[in-house]
């Protein structure tokens, strides 16, 4: 194993898949010389040429539709949108075409498409550049929505996404590109499935159900809580659609307490969706009400202190845990 960044892991995934399969190509704004907004596609044009790594005009709808059409035409596109914020200009094509073509044409059309896009806040980019819309897309049948938290998952899931026959929204977190983690050697083939979450830390007192950057926050919180004698289990869902509901239910049935931690807005979102499923299928195992730690319900402020206050941090998670794990469970 080597230790590499999330960014490099993503680039390796694309390089390996492009070497493996001629049909895979990349398109997006500034993916060639500039290497993409976060330098993820950097230098791929040098190996694969501008036939397979294509700069497009600044036009999110046609980028996305070109990828969808190309997928219908037998290719396996990876479209990069500069950030998820701009996916709204393409959201018609994502929701109305990519998600539905297979169903509404009676199973004839396949859209083996990956749309990569960074999301999330925390870098003082302001209200229009710091958003997490995964709930919006995960709401739509026909789409897969995945959010890897580690370099290992980033590489393995991107490779799986490229090989998947359904449209996959591959959501990266802007603050994760620089993090490092262990990844098998290059060309040592491995895949991470798109419909299975993973338990990042075992624990018996409470389940922290989370994904993307918040998985790291939850792990830090769990380490702190362990000092108080509380063993938190950290369940990284990785994919929010399809959702590995069994994994979350198994954990909750073991710990009897659940806290959902996400960066997105609270109301009508991913966390509330997961909470409702837990109540629906594991109510009898619950010893305490589910807690939901989420981003503040505001457009993201620019001011550093306000932005920090709007994103869930370790202490928020710890506070939620202390609220539902009874004293006697603590050492």
């Amino acid at each position: 194993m080597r230790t590499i960044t999330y960014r490099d892991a993503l680039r390796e995934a694309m390089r390996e898949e492009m070497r493996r399969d001629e049909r895979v190509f990349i398109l997006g704004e500034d993916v060639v010389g500039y290497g993409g907004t976060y330098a993820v596609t950097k230098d791929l044009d040098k190996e694969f040429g501008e036939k397979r790594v294509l700069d497009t005009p600044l036009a999110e709808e046609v980028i996305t539709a070109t990828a969808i059409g190309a997928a219908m035409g037998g290719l396996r596109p990876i479209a990069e949108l500069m950030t998820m914020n701009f996916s709204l200009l393409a959201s018609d094509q994502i929701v109305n075409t990519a998600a539905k073509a297979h169903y509404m044409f009676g199973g004839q059309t396949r859209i083996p498409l990956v749309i990569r896009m960074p999301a999330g806040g925390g870098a003082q980019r302001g209200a229009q550049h710091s958003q997490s819309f995964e709930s919006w897309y995960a709401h739509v049948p026909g789409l897969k929505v995945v959010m890897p938290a580690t370099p290992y998952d980033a590489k393995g899931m991107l490779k799986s996404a490229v090989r998947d026959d359904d449209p996959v929204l591959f959501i990266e977190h802007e603050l994760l590109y620089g993090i490092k983690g262990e990844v098998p050697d290059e060309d040592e083939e491995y895949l991470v499935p798109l419909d299975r979450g993973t338990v990042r830390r075992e624990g018996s007192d409470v389940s922290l159900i989370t994904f993307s950057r918040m998985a790291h926050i939850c792990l830090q919180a769990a380490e702190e809580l362990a000092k108080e004698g509380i063993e938190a289990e950290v369940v990284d869902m990785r994919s929010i659609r399809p959702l590995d509901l069994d994994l979350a239910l198994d954990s909750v049935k073991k710990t009897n307490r659940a806290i959902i931690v996400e960066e997105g807005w609270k109301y009508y979102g991913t966390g509330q969706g997961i909470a409702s499923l837990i109540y629906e299928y594991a109510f009898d195992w619950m010893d305490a009400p589910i807690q939901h730690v989420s981003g503040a319900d505001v457009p993201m402020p620019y001011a550093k202190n306000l932005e920090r206050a709007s994103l869930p941090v370790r202490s928020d998670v710890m506070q939620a845990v202390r609220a539902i794990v009874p004293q006697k469970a603590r050492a």
Partner: protein
Amino acid sequence: MAIRQVALAGLSREQLLGMYEEMLLIRRFEEKAAEEYTMGKIGGFMHLYIGQEALGVGAIATLGKEDKVISHYREHGHAISKGIAPRQVMAELFGRIDGCSKGKGGSMHMHDENVGLLGGYAIVGAQIVLACGLAFAAKYQNQNHLIMTFFGDGAVDEGAFHEGLNLASLWKLPVVYICENNQYSMGMSVEKAWSVPDLKDRAAAYAMPYEKVDGMDLIAVYEACKRATERARSGEGPTLLECITYRFRGHSMADPASYRPRDEVDRWRASQDPIPLYLEKLREAKAIKEEEIKAIEDRVDRVVQDAVEFADASPEPPLEELYTDVMVGDANAISWRYPRQ
């Protein structure tokens, strides 16, 4: 009456009569569909192509089987022209399992991979950008087919038109863009919607060849499309055709079209109906015998009758179909994975 060798657009007599039959078939098919709609056999939105038949038939006649058509929600004519059996089109309208999209698409979402009709789309303008991707895939894989795209005058005002035409021109994609300018988008007249009176200026903005075509004249449509398809095939890129036409009915079955002056509608119907206009042309060229006209009418009636009977006899999709095709891999619908006890 002796039939002499005719020379209309370099087409054989057989092709010329075939196009007549196809136009008539689409007309009769849709008249029948309107009847079935009124009787409650067909539901939802249904947009008829009546009045515009010369467009679909003339344009698609220039395509090979490998070429693809991608269209809007007013696509029954395109579906039939591209080769979906009228039975399957009618069954789709009836929402039955033998429809071309298993009854899951309906009037606005006809699709058949086998004949290359890659969908009717109900979001105005969507197919304009999707065509870029299909054409890109063809070019990338060195396939020689082209993509023909139909859209209305209303779609021109969507952002997709600008993004799509710009990219298609920039990348020299093999697309033929056909604007079916029937002069209204729902109730909005094109004069009120377009800041420039014809598409020539917009095409110029993308350095795209453009032609204005009489969309009621089958031969004119055929010839313009022939030029555009040859251009696309030879790698020179997309063409924009603006075909002037008129829909004889309302926007959809629900629309009495009271926003259009009575005399305007009457004038178009009386003097511009593409089917009698074309028949007149065939007669003038002495390309058709009177008994052939009768035989064609009889054949068309039989096909339409058969389509309705077939659709009526086809079962509704079994309830299991509700959860199939959501994804290629089916690990998707929560309610399906966790059936209620």
